[in-house]
């Protein structure tokens, strides 16, 4: 039967919302009542049916609307998609990975047919039916990375591995939580993470890099990250900070439930077969507070996490201005009872 794709927006009138089935599959990122950085990386294996892990590349009801929003961002600012000259092969690797995974998980929506190097790709939700020669960029309307990531939810960074480090040498980044691909492209793993507070001192990045440079083909890994966004806005780039920043001053006790969104990134890490690069999809899930608190356990736990978050982290995540209002609103939904371990709703 396939997915019913919602018609919705992530800007202007902000009509984005989650259907009830999508609320219960939301990847809630807190397994206990507190949060601190950890190298929370685990194997990216298929999870329960109906969860966001049912397929390793998740396509959901927001797919078409997200792709339309991406096209709008790119029309305004083409620098959100960049690939250094040595990264074209990795782009083909990524095209193969995403076509295979989407066709495997959602055969009613995507079909990939291969006859040697002649490939035919059918993307029904976006009305695309293209035949091209794998490895020949002149047979596609965009470079391979741009072509396929205009058809795949989430941001994508392609990392080149050399000198024992990972280098941010290509990416499609239109739904980022406040970092700039245009500024960070060409940086190594430590450099592009330089602005993150606390984690360097804890040795997080040294351990994470060691793990990532050892990722093997066919054995992807994943982790969750999170922040909060006012209004369901995908494009919270630093480029447009002066446009979306004022949203943070608009939170009132009356509109918290509708305006404040938990933004969760499902980050996964895949070794690419030809280029030996790593692709790092950053899949963004949004849920407004009104939707989240339909799960009482999540409401109680989120209250405790946000209330007790270290100030430095709250500042880095940009919560400072609306945190008191949010905590006050959530506190009314926290009766103090024990929350069960693990991520899922009760």
């Amino acid at each position: 039967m396939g997915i019913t794709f919602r018609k919705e927006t992530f800007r202007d009138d902000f009509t984005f919302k989650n259907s009830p089935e999508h609320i219960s599959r939301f990847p809630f990122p807190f397994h206990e009542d507190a949060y601190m950085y950890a190298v929370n990386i685990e194997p990216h294996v298929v999870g329960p049916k109906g969860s966001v892990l049912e397929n390793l590349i998740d396509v959901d009801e927001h797919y078409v609307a997200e792709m339309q929003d991406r096209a709008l961002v790119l029309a305004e600012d083409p620098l959100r998609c960049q690939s250094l000259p040595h990264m074209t092969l990795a782009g083909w690797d990524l095209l193969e990975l995403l076509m295979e995974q989407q066709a495997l998980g959602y055969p009613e929506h995507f079909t990939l047919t291969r006859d040697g190097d002649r490939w035919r790709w059918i993307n029904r939700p976006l009305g695309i039916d293209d035949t091209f020669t794998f490895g020949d960029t002149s047979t596609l309307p965009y470079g391979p990375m741009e072509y396929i990531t205009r058809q795949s939810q989430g941001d994508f960074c392609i990392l080149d591995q050399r000198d024992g480090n990972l280098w941010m040498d290509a990416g499609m980044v239109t739904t980022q939580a406040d970092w700039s691909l245009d500024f960070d492209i060409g940086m190594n793993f430590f450099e592009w993470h330089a602005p993150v507070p606390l984690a360097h001192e804890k040795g997080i990045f040294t351990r994470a890099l060691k793990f990532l440079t050892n990722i093997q083909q066919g054995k992807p890994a994943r982790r969750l990250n999170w922040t909060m966004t006012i209004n369901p806005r995908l494009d919270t780039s630093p480029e447009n900070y002066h446009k979306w920043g004022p949203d943070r001053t608009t939170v009132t006790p009356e509109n918290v439930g509708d305006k404040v969104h938990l933004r969760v990134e499902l980050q996964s890490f895949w070794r690419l077969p030809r280029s030996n690069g790593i692709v790092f999809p950053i899949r963004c899930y949004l849920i407004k507070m009104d939707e989240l608190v339909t799960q009482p356990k999540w409401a109680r736990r989120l209250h405790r996490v946000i209330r007790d978050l270290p100030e430095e982290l709250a500042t880095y995540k940009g919560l400072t201005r609306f945190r008191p209002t949010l905590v006050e609103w959530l506190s009314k939904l926290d009766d103090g009872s024990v929350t069960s371990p693990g991520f899922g709703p009760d």
Partner: protein
Amino acid sequence: MAAKTIISRPIYGTLSPQPGKHHLFLADADGALAIVDMAKTAPAGFFDGAEIVFIPGPDGKHVGALEALKPAQFHQAPSFASLLPRLKQTLTNAHMGLRLYLAGTEGLIGQAMQVALEAGIDHTSMQTEHRGSLARRMQCVHCKGITENVTTQPATCSHCGLLLLVRDHYSRRLAAFQGVCINAEDRSEIPPIEEAFP
């Protein structure tokens, strides 16, 4: 020397004579003194295979001191932009084993490094020494314009006019620090502007 803050922020060293026959020096203003100091420990004949390219500051000092080192080539340029074509050609035609020494302001070191990186020279193989002004070269993350010689915190973008927080986050590819709107959330908040990078 500027204090170390975050990992992407460049760290500069002290010039020291490297083995090899071909040495290219680029310096501006007080960066000349780093070369003069290094010359004291250089072996005899070191400058016979050296080229010095120098951009004097507004006071025009140090030209004589550099000429006295008797480099094989000495070139004086009025600005970084003016020496760019020459620098690109030198790097393109350079033999394997050319040693690069950059000394002076962060803007000069950064821009010279940017050109050298494009020519395929690894940044870790370049000798750098910071001398003189702490003024920063800043890219506005919003309009992408570069503002040269930023000395205040915050600083106004010379292109779009937004008031920017000058971060320590630095891109070698752009040879610039990142500037991000400091009052994006509430434009009526105007923080005091202080001299931060004299």
